[in-house]
């Protein structure tokens, strides 16, 4: 199989490229990113191209030029902007226009037969009337007050879904929040504080996905032939308070109305990306993906637990303990 992976220098893309190269089922990986010198393994089956996919001509030339000449069959696409506070036309172009152009370019392509698109669990509408378990038919969040981060993801997801049933095989993977540094995870950022404030009286269930499981889901979707939308839940489903405890942080319930200004101040002081306004509903009502369809059609079952962030002193203690054991 010959595969093109966009966003190959982001944590998920890089992990996927490594996983693909570790198997014999892939003849070629055409990795696409923005960095000139990416930290990817050297392998004769790996071709890296630095391309700005927000430029329509560059995207077209890549898909109809190199991808065609190399006989790429499957495209894995996921280059959404990660920082939740950024906004503007360029971000929109990266999140939506690129996806639109890529789908159009792949639809009538002579060699590309399959597109695997990375979408997000955050696009499901969370509120007190919504279910605690989201299947693929659950309503999406169309609130006009949502931040661009979310609106772009809903738009791109719908755009890809609109092409389901056409000549191009499409699998949309709506992934639970990938809980790892650098992935744009809001929960990861939230848990970086020593003191985690949460709404008083609410302790919703959250579900997080490990990078390994995300890679496994994409690999399963690439190699399979199932098309449609698939929820990709993670192995860890737990109350928010328990996630805070697992991360060795102080869990401080605070009256809800105080949280937005407090986290606004935190952002001003530290520059961290967590937005309470974006997570308001999720921190009250929660919601967990139903992965039945992915299990049946893709054979995906979450297996790997996430690594909870540890405070520096605990990491130091653990390392010292490990060193002593090694010396013995």
């Amino acid at each position, binding site marked *: 199989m010959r595969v093109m992976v966009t966003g190959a220098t982001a944590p998920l893309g890089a992990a996927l490229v490594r996983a693909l190269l570790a198997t014999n089922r892939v003849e070629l990986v055409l990795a696409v990113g923005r960095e000139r010198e990416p930290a990817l393994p050297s392998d004769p089956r790996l071709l890296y191209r630095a391309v700005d996919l927000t430029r329509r001509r560059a995207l077209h030339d890549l898909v109809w030029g190199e991808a065609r000449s190399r006989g790429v069959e499957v495209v894995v696409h996921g280059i959404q902007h990660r920082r939740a506070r950024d906004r503007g036309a360029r971000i929109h172009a990266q999140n939506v226009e690129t996806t639109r152009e890529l789908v159009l370019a792949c639809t009538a392509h002579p060699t590309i037969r399959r597109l695997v698109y990375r979408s997000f669990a955050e696009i499901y509408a969370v509120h007190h009337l919504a279910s605690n378990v989201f299947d693929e038919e659950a309503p999406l969040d169309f609130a006009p007050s949502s931040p661009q981060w979310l609106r772009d993801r809903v738009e791109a997801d719908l755009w890809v879904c609109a092409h389901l049933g056409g000549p191009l095989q499409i699998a949309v993977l709506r992934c639970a929040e990938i809980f790892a540094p650098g992935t744009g995870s809001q929960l990861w950022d939230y848990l970086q504080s020593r003191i985690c404030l949460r709404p008083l009286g609410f302790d919703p*269930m959250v579900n997080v996905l490990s990078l390994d499981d995300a890679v496994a889901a994409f690999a399963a979707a690439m190699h399979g032939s199932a098309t449609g939308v698939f929820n990709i839940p993670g192995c860890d489903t*737990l109350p928010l308070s*328990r996630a805070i405890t697992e991360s060795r942080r102080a869990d401080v319930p605070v009256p809800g109305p105080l949280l937005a200004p407090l986290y606004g101040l935190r952002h001003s002081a530290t520059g961290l990306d967590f937005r309470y306004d974006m997570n308001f509903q999720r921190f009250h*009502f929660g919601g967990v993906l139903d992965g039945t369809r992915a299990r049946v059609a893709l054979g995906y079952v979450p297996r790997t637990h996430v690594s909870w962030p540890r405070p520096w002193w605990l990491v130091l203690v653990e390392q010292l303990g490990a060193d002593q054991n090694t010396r013995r």
Partner: protein
Amino acid sequence: MMASTTFKRIVQEAAFFDEGYGFDVFGLHPRSLALSVAAARPIYESYFRVDSVGAEAIPREGPAILVANHAGVLPVDGAMLCLDVLRRTEPARIPRAIADHFVPRLPLVSTLFARLGVVNGTPANVRCLLDRGELIAIWPEGVAGPAKRFADRYRIQGWRVGFAELAIRYRAPVVPVAIIGAEESWPLLTKLRGTHVFGSPYLPIPASPIPLPAHYHLRYGMPHVLGHDSADASDPDLVASAALEVRYALERLIDDARRERRGVFR
């Protein structure tokens, strides 16, 4: 002794879909439930002196639906029913009470209810529970039950049919349960309709500050298997008549239980 046995039965024997951290996907935590059951034991045994007949009608396994009448300012009747099911099923089955949509908006209450197994009553949630073969408890009267006047006690106030559709689709037997005592225990004096605290439909003003020690009687009816096959769930007429069948059965149970009781507080 009894309390520790119930604790053990709930924590160790009851079927529970642990997601890996001791909670299920809806937030149920069996240890919290077991502690609450132990704490509520004096209320169940001594205050309301719950007397229960026919709990053996509850299926031991597989999806099933308990359908009960509803009354009282707060859902004390629901709590007594759930306690009774936990104590009288062998092995213990954790009933998943289906709550109205405003409940998740209530601070503290929403979290407490989730830990005890209460689930927000959306179709997807209920489908998920039945898929897993759980026992659910539904009050088809909804808010209209607790909101009724004292003069209307033990008269069914409205009858949603969603439970019948689900019962047919999942081939889940429906067990009607008459709850006697809740109406007199905590009657409603009036309700402030313009006040919607945390999304509640009205603010209840009870006739007494705490529930009165009315004698609770629970009567379980025989299980009803509704419809002939799952496809019948799409037929609105069949669903409506199936729901009506359960309603009549429940009304008969209520009438019988009221005739048999010796008095409200005795």
